[in-house]
């Protein structure tokens, strides 16, 4: 929808009414854009994943109590009152959805991509996950379980991908740069 779509016009009309009433500042929208451009995005989640790959004690703590484990990172952006991290293994592949709205761990991954919020993904990933993952270019081997996590309450889920082979010499920062958002939602692997 373009800047001049009926929704765009209506949104900015509403903004103007709220500014007139003193309920919103002129700069509020710019501040939102700056926050999500500069400070909140999937690199936060990638740093958590990279640390888990490098530090077995952190990984154990993260899988045991994700909320407490990420506290020292002091991420902003909201939407993570309780974090559960689910680990991909040779036996299990995990994928995350919110079929009822579009719940997503903003503080760890930023705001969700449009496909995550659209009806096709939300309707199908719980019913035919392998087929949907194939469309993302991910063929989950037969015999591997596919676990879908439908975030129906305030718990937010992050997938811990398997560490790719040949990355033994990389440090945390270099590893974090390898982890795409899609791998932490569970529609891609590394």
């Amino acid at each position, binding site marked *: 929808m373009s*800047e001049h779509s009926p*929704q765009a016009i209506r949104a900015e009309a*509403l903004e103007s009414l709220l500014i007139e009433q003193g309920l919103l500042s002129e700069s*509020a929208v710019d501040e939102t854009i700056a926050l999500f451009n500069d400070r909140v995005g999937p690199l936060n989640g990638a740093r958590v994943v990279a640390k888990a790959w490098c530090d077995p004690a952190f990984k154990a703590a993260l899988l045991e109590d994700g909320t407490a484990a990420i506290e020292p990172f002091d991420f902003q952006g909201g939407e993570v009152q309780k974090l559960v991290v689910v680990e991909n293994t040779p036996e299990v592949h995990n994928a995350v959805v919110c*079929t009822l709205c579009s719940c997503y761990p903003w503080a760890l991954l930023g705001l969700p991509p449009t496909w995550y919020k659209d009806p096709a993904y939300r309707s199908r990933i719980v019913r035919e996950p392998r087929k949907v993952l194939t469309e*993302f270019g991910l063929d989950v081997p037969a015999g591997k379980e596919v676990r879908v996590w*439908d975030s129906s309450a305030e*718990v937010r889920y992050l997938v811990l991908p398997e560490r790719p082979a040949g990355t033994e010499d990389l440090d945390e920062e270099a590893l974090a740069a390898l982890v795409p958002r899609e791998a932490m939602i569970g529609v891609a692997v590394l």
Partner: protein
Amino acid sequence: MDSMHDLGGRQGFGPVEREEDEPIFHGRWEACVFTIANHMIGKGVIRNVDQFRHAIERTDPVAYLTHGYYGRWLGGVENLLTEAGVVDAEGMAEAVEARGGDRRDPVAARPSSQPDQVPPAEVRGAGRQVEEAPRFSVGQPVRTAATSVSGHTRLPGYARGRTGTIVRLQGGWVYPDSNAHGRGEQPQQLYCVRFEGEELWGAEAEPGQSVHLDLFESYLTAATS
């Protein structure tokens, strides 16, 4: 509420369409809607996130599918701001026309003439201590409620009347079904419940498939297997 938002398991939407190099916001207006919603929740004009989610569910079902994510949010925000008396239909129509829009364009909002009276939230966040011990334990089979409700709920339609297994206790949380409507927080235990694919989709289920949902104690009864 059996509206368009409850999408899990519905068929016919086709392949997942991905956008190359998708921007965080497609134009300023998306950031505008996001900002308005968050600021109105922050200021208590929108009382709580459950009320907001339900306000989105109450938008026009056709608009829900065609106006996009931020279009749905706009409808939800407008529902609540109209019901709170912050804006009205004529004021919105004039503001739309002042920006070159047409007052006859489709509008997602469907404000109620008899809205719920929802008090301001006293505590931020939704996690709560619950005095009563959890009724269910890890490994226990449970069955979900079989019928729908006309208000807000976090039990998706596809998981109604199904049997699953408790895999994790998630602690005490505000009960959205009550809180969304101003009937109090009524905090209760939340459980992560695992459902096998065959239980949800029968013989059509893909092999080795399971779905996990976080479900409130009120939705669950003990099952035999």
